[in-house]
């Protein structure tokens, strides 16, 4: 393990860490000095305003709906694009330009997409859905074409040699073979998008984040806290659900494969 080459690499990483720390002028002491400031926030929270729970709940539902629509739309668009971008199914003239386009889409963080779409279609959930869609396309398509490329080439070779068409190949080989990965990616993306949709509300793209940022702006931390708690509970519930789905479809597949 620890040969000359690896030692050199580890040494290089340590130097890079120290150099970055120094050059960025980070001051660890200010973190500890700042801790009492955080207490001020907590002191402000005398009584959590539970009357806002129903508003928080409704806006959380809106957030989930936005994330759901964005994930579904993004996923639907990403799949054909990732087929065009995979090296084992598409030609060079297809996958090279497609990868460039997807790299460009991926470069923008969702908050930037949200700002762009708020300018385009105005404030509200529509801008949020659009930005989540675009973000999902950029993010998921890379995962998708990588899992499509991971399909055993012998299977694809063998079945193309039967003379079936590309669309049949995709329907009967590519989708079933990569299904566990695709499902796992879908769950991950939805989970991620729910949290993200809460954030893009900050720029006015609808959802629960819009409330959180406004209450924080006016120093009404006890109200913001109610909304944050609702986000926390939702994320935990989604996490529990995705564990169930994962157990049922993905783990079962992986373990039964090992048994053979």
């Amino acid at each position, binding site marked *: 393990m620890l040969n000359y080459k690896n030692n050199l690499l580890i040494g290089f990483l340590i130097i890079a860490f120290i150099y970055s720390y120094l050059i960025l002028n980070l001051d660890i002491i200010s973190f500890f000095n700042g801790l009492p400031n955080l207490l001020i926030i907590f002191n402000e929270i005398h009584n959590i305003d539970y009357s806002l729970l129903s508003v928080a709940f409704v806006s959380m539902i809106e957030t989930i709906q936005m994330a759901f629509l964005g994930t579904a739309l993004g996923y639907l668009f990403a799949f054909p694009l990732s087929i065009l971008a995979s090296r084992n199914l598409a030609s060079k003239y297809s996958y090279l330009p497609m990868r460039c386009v997807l790299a460009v889409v991926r470069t923008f963080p969702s908050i930037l997409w949200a700002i762009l779409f708020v300018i385009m279609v105005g404030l509200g959930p529509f801008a949020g859905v659009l930005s989540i869609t675009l973000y999902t396309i950029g993010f998921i398509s890379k995962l998708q074409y990588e899992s499509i490329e991971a399909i*055993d080439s*012998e*299977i694809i*070779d*063998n*079945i*193309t*040699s*039967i*003379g*079936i*068409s590309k*669309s*049949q190949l995709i*329907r*009967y*080989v590519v989708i*079933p*073979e990569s*299904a*566990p990965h695709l499902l796992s990616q879908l769950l991950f993306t939805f989970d991620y998008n729910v949290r993200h949709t809460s954030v893009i509300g900050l720029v006015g793209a609808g959802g629960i984040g819009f409330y959180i940022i406004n209450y924080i702006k006016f120093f009404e931390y006890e109200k913001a806290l109610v909304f944050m708690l609702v986000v926390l509970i939702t994320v935990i519930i989604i996490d529990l659900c995705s564990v169930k789905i994962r157990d049922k479809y993905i783990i079962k*597949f992986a373990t*039964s*494969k090992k048994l*053979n």
Partner: protein
Amino acid sequence: MNNSLSSNNIIINMDKVWLSYDKIHYVLNEITMSVKQSTNYTIIGQSGSGKSTLLKLINGLLIPSKGKITVFGMTPNKKNKQFLNIMKKIGYIPQSLGLVKNISVLDNVLIGTLTRINKIKSILKILPEIEIDNAKQALELVGLEDKMEKKTYALSGGEKRRVAIARALAQKPILLLADEIVSELDHVTSKEIMNLISDTQHELKLTSVMIHHDIKLALDYADIVSVLQKGKKILEIGVNGNTITDFDMTKNQPC
């Protein structure tokens, strides 16, 4: 040598075929062979002797570096649209079987019938009854009719081989290419599978090119046995039952 003599149709013809993956080392050196209709042509040889490569040349997955191949009178190439119609009639069972693990046994066999089904309908999975029956018959033939609905990954090694055979049969091929189809299997199962193939072969007048590890098995079932060593064909013998009917030692002696 049974009816192959009466019908003098040559299905596969290779003329001084060379193949190299890296343009330096040749995997196949000057292979010349021809396979007549309804014969079982079996290739044996050590691993790395180029047997699997030879099969992939026949169905157009690989293109020779030098020399000429004709299969049903056409040059095999998977990118050639005209050869596609021939590919549909070639059943190919690679060593790794190439099954889709995550779908049912029946669906895997149905893949063999897809070329005869309308594209859009097959994508929506509206398959004609007759093709479903074909697939079921093929599964019955290999003795897997009670495991149709099972996922393919849950089968044993021998069962997976049977699925691959059933898929090739559902394709209704006129040429069957099988790469070490019974290696890794116990003696009884390999006999069963070979008998099955040999029976259907006689029934359907199928031509086949097979690769075996086991020389005894090759002699039992083949009409012609050809020996490859380091990419060269060193021997070709005609077999009928236990008698060797033809013997041809080519000039390329191994070193």
